């Protein structure tokens, strides 16, 4: 269970870290005001500082409203399970796509999600998993001539 208070603090932490990274990145360059106005790192450096300060201020606001925010559930157990059931296959989809290309992975992803999360009949799952990549092929490769990422399977089939 995730309360609003915790999520606010997590977000502040992330913003703080991003602010820090921005400051460090900016300091690889001149951050001052040169003869002809601001140098390369001038803006990123100040952006980073603003992010650092704002994250601390938002965290302080959250601490002040702690009682109220700690009672507000932003993610329940059931909700978290549904999100993970959706999110983990997505991560797998993107990871596998780097190797196998988009067409094959799209089919696999649809098959897995419709079958194991949606619990639909095999016939539905397979037809969706075949139809979407095939339609995409005609849409992107043939019609718009925007080639999608291809992998070993397309090479083996002689399509890449």
């Amino acid at each position, binding site marked *: 269970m995730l309360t609003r208070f915790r999520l606010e603090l997590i977000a502040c932490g992330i913003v703080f870290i991003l602010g820090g990274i921005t400051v460090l990145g900016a300091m690889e360059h001149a951050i001052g005001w040169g*003869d002809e*106005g601001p*140098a390369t790192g001038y803006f990123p450096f100040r952006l980073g500082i603003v992010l650092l300060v704002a994250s601390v201020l*938002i965290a302080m606001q959250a601490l002040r409203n702690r009682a109220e925010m700690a009672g507000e559930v932003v993610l329940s157990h059931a909700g978290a399970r549904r999100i993970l059931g959706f*999110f983990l296959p997505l991560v797998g*989809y993107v990871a596998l796509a780097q190797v196998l290309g988009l067409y094959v992975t799209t089919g696999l992803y649809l098959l897995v999600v419709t079958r194991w999360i949606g619990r639909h009949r095999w016939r539905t799952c397979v037809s969706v998993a075949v139809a979407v990549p095939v339609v995409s092929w005609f849409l992107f490769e043939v019609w718009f001539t925007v080639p999608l990422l291809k992998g070993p399977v397309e090479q083996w089939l002689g399509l890449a």
Partner: protein
Amino acid sequence: MSNLDSLLHGFTVALTFHHVLLMVAGVLLGILVGVLPGLGAPNGVTLLLPLTFSMDPVSAIILLTSTYWGALFGGSTTSILFNIPGEPSSVATTFDGYPMARAGRASEALTFAFMSAGFGALVGVVVITLLSGFVTSFALRFGPPEYFAVYLLAFCSFIAFGSGAPLKTLVSICLGFAFGAIGMDSVSGEMRLTFGLDDLIRGISFLVVVIGLFGIGEMLLTLEEGLEFRSVGGRLNPREVLAAIGRLPRYWLAMLRGSCVGVWMGITPGGPTAASFMSYGIAKRMSRRGSRFGTGEPEGVIAPETADHSAGTAAMLPMLALGIPGSATAAVMLGGLMIWGLNPGPMLFIDRADFVWGMIASMYLGNVVGVILVLATVPLFASMLSIPFTVIGPIIVTVCVVGAWTVASAPFDLWLVVVFGITGWGMKKLDYPIAPLILAMVIGDKAEDAFRQSMIMSQGSLGVLWASPLVATLSTLAVALLLVPVVSSFRARRRRFRPMEEAAPSE
């Protein structure tokens, strides 16, 4: 009457067979995008944008704007029939639209929504037509300081009028700037914030970010709630449609009020979402039947719908003329303009008059086409929602992932979509506004360039931002807007009561 001449010329550009076909395709795709949850207007336009890279700019903008109109119509459809807003800007339509549909008045509610939306859009385009001639009159006075002042004005107004807490809006803007700064610095040619990573040298495309934040993020929110559709039946009865059209003029006051609110909110970057909520609130307070709002009152459908669409169309004017987008979708289109090699700003109205007027003319036509098409296809699209979400949802995900690939053909971008997807979920949960982040990514570099060029012109003196009456007005207005949150939080502390702002979600 030069505006009329230009507009007539625009119609000759827009009224070719090819362009009308694109309009129809755009509207239909838009309705699809608007009806499906998780695929909103910003995301739909983003997914189409890479496919327009090879088109000529006029065709491209006609396709994208038509998609936008279609998405606005589609969003209202699901609001009324399913009580599920397909777009953030059609949330207010659910308040009275769904009760009407449940009472067996779905045809009436949908007709009122579409017709008043079409009316609002037309008012928006007429205002654009009238103001466009005026834009060209100060075009030649626009230099880097003026551009920077305008960008500054855009960001200050987001902080002042935005629905989010000012600090969170500030964080969104700064994050957008920081993401936008990644890659080559266009003034010095140095690599910034890349930390030696090859994948970051190209920078992060705002299109990928939109797909993640809006597409995947929205999908996570929808799934978390375990969404089920409960339709009240999407059949349209032609006789009821005609009867409703006949009754529409009775609500002229509500439509006019909604259009005024919408046009104002569209031109100042308040956006359609804020406009529809504001219009609903105003109608509720001013209507004689205000106390019955929420139980299925036609005025409660008409007010947010007119405002939503007039804001959507009016937002195109500041986008073209100043490079300030009034909504997240307009921000994406603005990015599109730059990719097609057009420079938004008053000079566009002189250099590329064919583009500007072709687009404006297409907005007249596109909305008429939109009303007709949406009335004709509602049953078809409504029946799409009888497909289980566990099938539609994953397909939408694959569309988002594939769409992210088409932006730059980079495997790394797919990971960015995942990361920004979870970010979008968190931002929605914590009310960090997303639109300012997108806007900052799109015009961040340009704003910085404009500032640094101004500083080169003035040898490092900020005085250049107050050097002429035009730029001084813009800069002063921008700084003044920053004081709005300070003043309003002071007033809120005295009253401790803010009814309107709490209702409006960030777009």
